[in-house]
């Protein structure tokens, strides 16, 4: 065997290092996984019943609320129930609760959230045959008269006081419908163009006439 020449030392050394690196890499990459020691816990066996698990109750997402007003002798009651809807509207449902405490739906309408059917303090006619509702919007209020029985008027389920007032071309604007001067007579106050108080009117629900009063209310 010939002796390694001095000049061949670097080459031999490099070769040895390379071979060692290759062999080491082989063994590193192919080493077997270590055995994991798993703690063994004995658990009781639970038989799963066949009935479904109870689901937790979810609080209703849509609000409900109501307001009401009795008639002047307390014998019957007007109720408006409000119910938020998924489409951001609110259903407004008007009920009459009679002497026997039975509830009758008179009218229902879905309104945008800024609008609302409100029950005025003086909603009931003194003879309890009619009531009026104030439909409030951010711009104005409209006053609707219904029959307690839920029956129709000649032109529909309710009288729109504002609409009839506008048809008469009275040179004032409705300020408020304040209540009933007598059975069948709604009291309407008005405003002039300069927003000062105008004359007051009776709205006669049988004839649909507006009668100007000599006294302001």
């Amino acid at each position, binding site marked *: 065997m010939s002796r390694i020449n001095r000049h061949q030392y670097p080459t031999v050394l490099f070769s040895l290092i390379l071979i060692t690196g290759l062999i080491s890499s082989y063994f590193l990459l192919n080493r077997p996984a270590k055995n994991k020691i798993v703690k063994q816990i004995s658990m009781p066996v639970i038989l799963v019943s066949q009935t479904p698990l109870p689901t937790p109750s979810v609080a209703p997402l849509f609000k409900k609320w109501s307001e009401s007003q009795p008639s002047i*002798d307390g014998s019957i009651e007007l109720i408006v129930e409000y119910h938020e809807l998924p489409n951001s509207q609110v259903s407004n449902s008007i009920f009459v609760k009679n002497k026997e405490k039975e509830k009758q739906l008179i009218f229902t309408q879905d309104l945008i959230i800024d609008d609302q059917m409100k029950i005025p303090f003086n909603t009931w006619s003194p003879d309890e045959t009619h009531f009026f509702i104030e439909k409030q919007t951010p711009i104005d209020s409209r006053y609707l008269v219904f029959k307690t029985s839920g029956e129709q008027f000649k032109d529909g389920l309710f009288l729109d006081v504002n609409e009839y007032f506008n048809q008469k071309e009275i040179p004032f604007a409705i300020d408020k419908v304040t*209540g009933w001067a*007598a059975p069948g007579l709604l009291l309407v106050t008005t405003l002039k163009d300069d927003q000062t108080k105008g004359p007051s009117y009776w709205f006669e629900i049988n004839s649909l006439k507006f009668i100007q009063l000599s006294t302001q209310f």
Partner: protein
Amino acid sequence: MVKHLILPSIVVLLFIGFLLSFFLTKQKIACANSISCTNNLSTLIENDAQGIFLGQIVDVPDINPSSEKMSTVLGETDQASSKHIYVDLAQQKLYAFDGDKLFLETLVSTGKWGRTPPGEYRIWVKIRSTRMSGGSGNDAYDLPNVPFNMFFYSPQVPKSRGYALHGAYWHNNFGHEMSHGCVNMRPIDAEQIYNWTNPISQKSTTYESVDDPGTQISICNQILLNQGTNPVCLE
């Protein structure tokens, strides 16, 4: 002799004239109900009658006292002095307090044709039902079965003037002046106040007495409400 009588006669006549003018001007407070006034202070129930108000015929609700229980607010007969009613003419509101506890707050209608006079009053008689009439022309009214009447008086507004708190079945415009001087309330509110106030109702007509004086009523142009203290009547 005649000459000696002239001067004394003039003095006497002047004195009589002074007395007449004094008493005539003292009658400035008109009757709340110009026709019925206080003509009949016994209970008057007229079922199946018709009423008139503002030229409209009004159906009169029936009253059946035999089916009614004479109810009172229990435990309060000895606390008459703590009860006090306040009427705010500006807001058309009534507040009933027992001490500093609010018993009832509601809207009322005071005088439009004939102002309800402000002042400090006391209830002197309670009458379950009476007839009230007055006015003239389009303003004329004749109303049977006016329910739950509590007549009040003061040194300035005597009993004969017939001012009262009472129920009103002929209109529903509370929160606005609608009466001829009395304080109108919804019948359901009048019934509550009637059963709460002194004198405690023993019969359908009950007068106050030394042992059971009537509840005080303050009728004010405006009322200032503060929590924890009694309402303040602003002139």
